[in-house]
């Protein structure tokens, strides 16, 4: 007969679970409401979702740092908090965009399930970043990913189905690799808790055979991370999936799932980088350099703005991975700062794609958002063109717009590391990064050239119809925060650095 196990409620520290529970409870609430009364308008659900996210935000913000809970599965450290906050802000900016769309064109928002799934997804991402247990990471990853596949598919166009299935296939593969990697790590070290893994690795550093198999686990993990963060050579799905999803969804996907996976990568690879296993950081840097360069080259030749933005976000992911390979506090803080600024700009840029559309899509045209659609936009809707240009300049890293500060801090962390370790190759890495920024400037400029310098196309089917108040408000907020970023760089930097350094990264 088994001994009864007594667990005191205090030792579970359930407060660490509160943010995710709020999101899950909210999702269930939405489903229950739908069960009782099914003809409710989407505005109810949008506002409800926003309120739940607000409460979630508050719960996350008030979490005590460096706490463990729920049988030590949950780890609430600084990066868990800061990444959850970024995820929630991105979600809060994304959800109200649903208010804007007409029910006919974007009918996915008329289903309450959409919002329930959305909240499940948010909870999944929150689980992913708030643990150092490989199994819980996987559970969070799968919860989030499965919801996300469905959200994409609910857009219900042929492109969306294709995108969802493509993403699902790739995601399943990535999940497989993640599991394999976890299995190898478990097989070699006997633990799925990363802090245990770190201890065991440290004690076994001199055993070559052991380290080789441990590194094998890292390589499998890297494949999984590569798929999710869209690093070369696992980035192929990105442009197609983004193209198939609705524009704001694509913007959301370029930030939140990637950030969650970057945090996972930071935790897993951080173990190895902190133990000074150079091979890991070299692999990551090489992949990062190839990713940013190749994606830039591909972005140069795109004819579609959405695909261009997809490639550009791959290239930005490469940037972030380069900082991740350093394993310094500044490098890790710069990643969150970068994502914070990138969120504002990229979500804005994708949302802007929404405001213009063809009345009727002619079927010989391959693309939804060809560059030619934006020709002479400045004469038709000058404000929209100016805002789009601001987002493009910000993405290119032109000061004083937001992403410049992210880029500055990120490149600074690379340069610092190079000077501190007296390794010329990190300076070279920084040079490669800035040259990539210069290449990237070309395709961002291309859109500006179309909008400002070319005359409008004669095409009468182009209409600028989707400008509703919620969209304008959200884009206004994003544009203002992009332009005035200099005013809040300091508090943001202080906050992020404090959280990251307090959790020992």
């Amino acid at each position: 007969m088994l001994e009864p196990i007594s667990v005191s409620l205090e030792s579970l520290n359930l407060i660490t679970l509160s943010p995710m529970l709020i999101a899950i409870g909210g999702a269930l609430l939405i489903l229950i409401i739908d069960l009782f009364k099914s003809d409710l308008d989407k505005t109810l659900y949008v506002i409800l979702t926003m309120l739940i996210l607000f409460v979630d935000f508050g719960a996350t913000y008030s979490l005590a740092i460096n706490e463990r809970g729920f049988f030590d599965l949950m780890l609430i450290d600084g990066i868990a908090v800061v990444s959850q906050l970024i995820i929630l802000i991105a979600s809060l900016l994304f959800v109200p965009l649903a208010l804007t769309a007409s029910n006919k064109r974007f009918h996915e928002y008329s289903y309450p399930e959409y919002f329930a799934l959305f909240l499940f997804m948010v909870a999944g991402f929150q689980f992913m970043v708030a643990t150092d247990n490989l199994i819980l990471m996987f559970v969070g990853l799968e919860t989030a990913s499965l919801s996300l596949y469905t959200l994409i598919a609910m857009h219900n166009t042929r492109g969306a189905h294709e995108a969802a299935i493509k993403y699902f296939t790739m995601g399943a593969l990535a999940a497989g690799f993640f599991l394999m990697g976890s299995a190898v790590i478990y097989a070699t070290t006997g633990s799925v808790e990363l802090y245990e893994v770190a201890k065991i690795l440290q004690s076994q550093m001199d055993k070559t055979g052991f380290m080789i198999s441990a590194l094998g686990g890292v390589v499998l993990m890297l494949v999984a991370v590569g798929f999710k963060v869209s690093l070369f050579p696992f980035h192929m799905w990105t442009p197609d999936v983004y193209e198939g999803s609705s524009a704001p969804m694509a913007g959301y996907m370029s930030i939140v799932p990637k950030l969650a996976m970057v945090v996972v990568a930071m935790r897993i690879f951080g173990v190895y980088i902190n133990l000074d296993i150079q091979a890991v950081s070299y692999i990551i840097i090489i992949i990062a350099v190839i990713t940013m360069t190749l994606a830039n080259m591909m972005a140069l030749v795109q004819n579609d703005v959405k695909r261009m933005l997809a490639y550009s976000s791959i290239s930005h992911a490469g940037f972030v991975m380069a900082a991740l390979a350093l394993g310094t506090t500044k490098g890790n803080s710069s990643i969150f700062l970068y994502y914070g600024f990138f969120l504002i700009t990229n979500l804005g840029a994708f949302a802007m794609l929404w405001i213009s559309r063809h009345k009727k899509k002619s079927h010989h045209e391959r693309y939804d958002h060809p560059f030619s659609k934006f020709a002479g936009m400045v004469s038709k809707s000058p404000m929209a063109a100016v805002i789009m240009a601001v987002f493009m300049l910000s993405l290119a890293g032109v000061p004083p717009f937001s992403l410049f500060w992210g880029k500055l801090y990120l490149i600074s962390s690379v340069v610092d590391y190079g000077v501190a370790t007296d390794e010329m190759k990190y300076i070279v890495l920084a040079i490669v990064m800035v040259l990539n920024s210069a290449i990237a400037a070309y395709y961002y400029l291309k859109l500006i050239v179309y909008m400002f310098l070319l005359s409008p196309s004669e095409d009468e089917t182009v209409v600028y119809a989707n400008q509703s108040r919620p969209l304008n408000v959200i884009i206004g907020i994003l544009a203002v925060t992009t332009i005035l970023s200099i005013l809040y760089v300091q508090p943001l930097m202080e906050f992020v650095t404090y959280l990251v350094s307090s959790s020992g990264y």
Partner: protein
Amino acid sequence: MENILSILVFFPLVAGLLGFLVDKNSIRVYGIAVASIEFILSLWLWMLFDTSNAGFQFVEMIPLVPDFGISYYVAVDGISLFIIIMATLMTLIGIIALNIEKNIKNLIITLLFLEVAMIGVFVSLDAIIFYLFWEFSLVPMLYIIGAWGGERRIYAAVKFFLYTFAGSLIMLIGMLYVAYVYHSVSGAWSFAITDWYALVLPFEVEKYLFWAFFIGFAIKVPMFPFHTWLPYAHGQAPTVGSVILAAVLLKMGTYGFVRFSLPMFPDASVAYIMPVAILALIMIIYTAMVAYAQEDMKQVIAYSSVSHMGVIIIGTFAMNAEGITGSIFLMLSHGIVSGALFLLVGSIYDRRHTKLMSEFGGLASVMPKYALIYGIMLMASVGLPLTIGFVGEYLSLVGFFKVSPTLTVLAGTSIILGAVYMLTLYKRTFFGPVTNDANKKLMDLDGKELTALVPLVAIVIWLGIYPKPVLVPIDNSVKALTSFMHEKAHTPKAKATILVSKTTREVK
């Protein structure tokens, strides 16, 4: 008026933003009014400026990102003072002479934003703020060239943007490097240039940093072999774009050398005098020859502009007070003279819609005022004594003579070659019989153009005869700079080369 510099920087910004509310038929007057106020403010700055003080004045410092050492840190000294005045003057002149009707509101507002960036670059003493204005200046210029330019305007605009953007990103790495070194030495982050001045770096580090900054500045100047964007930009830009580009934007590069490279890396600067001087010489001689081969009047002036920038570089790298003072004075004179020449080419282009020299001939009899002003500006460009061009060119060359007489002789050919292509241009355009019927009824300069050009002529002659009011403050600051560099340099070669001069006053 402690914060006059902030007013100077942000007044055009506010005016530009409010400009959106002004009706497009009244925007020209609005632009002229704002630019005049800005110009008067900059003159007032000169009035308030203590010419006997060689250091930084009107210092303002507001921490922006204290954790990372970035602050809004502005000040002005003798070196930047006159470049600021020239920038406001040339913007004013550019707006007065404007004769574009298409989208004029956007153009005026863009010019005001550009003015913010230009003034910002010359007053910033914080590297990141400097970089911010430096990069931001690209955006309005991209729009000016791209929207109001000639046939291949988009190619020219994008080329201009990408070239400078790439170069300045390399410079940014240099800045981050210095900032980290400063951090590891002092324990605090700082991007203040005055803090960086105090940093004595080993030569091994200095040399890399020197080249990192060099790439950023050299592309802007533009030095050979990075100069290829400039003829395109000038060729395609509208008149006002060319005026501002030649007069002010190019000076950012040479100013950067004086403000950053020399005081921060005195040893590396001395060590690389020869490579830099040879590049500058190639610039001077090669582009002068290219200028001679041009058919297009504007291209001649564009290439001559590159050629004269070479003399400025030579003067800067003379590493003594004469040379540096001369190069700064030459920046001013080059700004005024080339700005005026671009205006003149612009006005003939407006009349005939061509800039080819072969289309003209005998204009002196049809447009006497035009020919006169053109002649004066041309002589100033060549460097005739008693014009503004002579003072700076002479001082630069005198300064460099102490470094290398041979190279100075070669650099001196700029005057001869300049005379060759400029006089050829003048001969083909203005002398001889009026061969082309289209030229017989050309209007002489009208009131608007005269308003823009006559003040420039007055300045050219005034400062050519009596440069002292401008030279003395520059000279004071430059002497402080050279003695600082002399102090800071630690390699024997640099100590020997950087001369702390006692006399330059004999040139008056």
